[in-house]
């Protein structure tokens, strides 16, 4: 068994060789982020990491924050809570002062418990479960929480009388999707529509949706609510088209990105409504600048995860400036300063104008309803 130990030592040695320390301690603000960069959820983690890098470079080019540069370290967690905690500890060893993460909900819950113990400032760009920021008063959120989305969707559908019979297709093995569905269902009881079919799929069988669609069709649904990510949604739309089922479609923020799927026939998404804080087609300067740069660097259109992460960097920047923080503060002191500053700042970002935070540590922004017409988002 000695050879195993030999292997381990070689691996350690090579790992040390690769690690770099470019800046001296206390001269830069060290921002860490954690998300799935490999594994089935990699597309979300990579979008976040790309956008943070882009924003950090922008901030640094413009002279940094309080005269200091930002330094960014992305870590992979494969969408696994245990690996996420490992990634968090790696970042602590690196000297992280603030965490802009994690990307997905379940790992975020585990990491935020650790961060609360350490009094480490945590701003999750896209962890939407309520528990993601519940462990301590050190955690804030950029995106909407699951209840926000589920309740807002049900209210929107009810108030605008979009449908009388609603079917839901959701991913029962996913925290995000199941979380939104649960709150949607709760609010639906108060709304003038009826949920006629609630069909689930799981991570292990998400290629064929014919049954879910057939049931929705047989139940006479005139609107299908999909609290899921765009990848599965694109398959659902394709399969519904093949079987000649054409209800109204309604999605949530995870749906954003459906128009960017390479080779997807956008005509299928015609009329799809979604609640999203961000659309890559928006014509304001902030969005145009972000989308152009992102496409230039990474060769694809940014999805909503990227927008939340980009905003996250500017939120941290605003909070650091408000608090007058300096890079030589330790993580805990910085966290106390940022906690206070967060409730005082107002940030205009890609995902909302005039975002503020109160003691609930949730962002105050309203989801915008958009509808896809002729292959682009149009506000409703």
């Amino acid at each position: 068994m000695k050879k195993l130990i030999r292997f381990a030592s070689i691996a350690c040695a090579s790992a040390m060789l690769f690690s770099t320390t470019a800046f001296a301690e206390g001269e830069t603000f060290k921002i860490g982020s954690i998300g799935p960069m490999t594994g089935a959820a990699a597309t979300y983690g990579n979008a976040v990491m790309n956008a943070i890098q882009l924003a950090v470079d922008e901030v640094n080019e413009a002279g940094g924050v309080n005269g200091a540069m930002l330094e960014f370290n992305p870590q992979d967690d494969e969408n696994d809570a245990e690996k996420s905690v490992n990634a968090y500890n790696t970042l602590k060893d690196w000297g992280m002062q603030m965490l802009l993460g994690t990307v997905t909900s379940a790992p975020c819950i585990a990491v935020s418990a650790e961060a609360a113990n350490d009094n480490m400032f945590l701003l999750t760009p896209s962890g939407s479960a309520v528990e993601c920021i519940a462990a301590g008063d050190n955690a804030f959120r950029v995106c909407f929480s699951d209840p926000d989305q589920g309740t807002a969707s049900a209210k929107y559908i009810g108030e605008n009388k979009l449908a009388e019979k609603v079917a839901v297709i959701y991913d029962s093995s996913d925290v995000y999707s199941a979380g939104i569905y649960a709150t949607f269902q709760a609010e639906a009881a108060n709304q003038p529509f009826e949920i006629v079919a609630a069909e689930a799929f799981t991570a292990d069988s998400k290629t064929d949706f014919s049954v879910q669609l057939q049931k929705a069709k047989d139940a006479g649904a005139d609107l299908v609510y999909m609290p899921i990510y765009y990848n599965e949604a694109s398959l659902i739309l394709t399969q519904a088209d093949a079987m000649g089922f054409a209800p109204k479609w309604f999605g949530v923020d995870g749906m954003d990105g459906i128009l960017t799927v390479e080779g997807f026939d956008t005509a299928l998404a015609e009329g799809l409504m979604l609640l999203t804080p961000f659309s890559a087609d928006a014509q304001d300067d902030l969005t145009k600048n972000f989308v152009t740069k992102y496409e230039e660097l990474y060769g694809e259109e940014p999805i909503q995860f990227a927008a939340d992460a980009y905003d996250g960097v500017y939120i941290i920047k605003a909070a650091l400036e408000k608090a007058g923080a300096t890079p030589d503060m330790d993580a805990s002191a910085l966290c106390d300063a940022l906690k206070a500053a967060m409730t005082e700042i107002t940030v205009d970002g890609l995902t909302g104008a005039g975002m503020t935070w109160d003691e609930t540590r949730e962002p105050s922004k309203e989801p915008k309803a958009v509808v896809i017409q002729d292959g682009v988002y149009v506000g409703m």
Partner: protein
Amino acid sequence: MSFLSYLINGLSLGSVYAIIALGYTMVYGIAKMLNFAHGDVIMVGGYAALTMMLATGTNPLIAVVVAIVVCTVLGVVIERIAYRPLREAASPLAVLITAIGVSYFLQNIVLLIFGSSPKNFQSVVLLPDLKLAGGALIITGEAIVTIISCIVIMIVLTAFINKTKAGQAMLAVSEDKGAARLMGINVDRTIALTFAIGSGLAALAGVLLCSAYPSLSPYTGSMPGIKAFVAAVFGGIGSIPGAMVGGILLGIIEILGKAYISSQLADAIVFAVLIVVLLVKPTGLFGKKIQEKV
């Protein structure tokens, strides 16, 4: 009517499982190894075909041929580097673990080259959908092509194994490697040929899988791969008609389970049926009895 519709959907899904299972069972039958990387070879086949179609705008049929060539070469290379050195290892589990390593390797190399965002696959099937009963029942062109391909492959493979010299050599190797070598059969070459055919079939399966369910990511192959493995066991692993029947049954059970029992528990139902089948027939539907030597 909706029952018929479910049945047809099950048949379509099952035909995809069946075509993957054919490659699986072929490699298992001859080389006696569970090739966990098979699902990822399928994914590579999908990417190869997609790249050809997007980059060069070639005819889909040419793209399929290219994908088959790429995967055949890949299969032979994997066998040579990762599996052959372990063929005489003290435990058959060694090569199983290496196959898992190969599976991780393929996923991550594709992730690095093509990125993590899912790609929409353009169907290579030009056949229109078949509409029955005034449009209430739809059999997609992809499903028809997949089922026909399955049957053709099954017949060709069976004929190849029973009628050609190379096929007979495969049978001999699967029965007893040592004796086959004594009879002058080149065992290494025969097993390499098995991997070549199995991987070529994987490419075809990949293209058909992605045509039927047009979403391609580096992890597309892993779950269908496991399902196809289950299908192969269902039918009696090593049996070519068994793989086809197993795959189609699996698809139908999955869809009917989803439709009539619970959509959340569809996978659990599939596995429960598998357990029951194996308890009644311990070597699958078409499996050979295990001979016990005293």
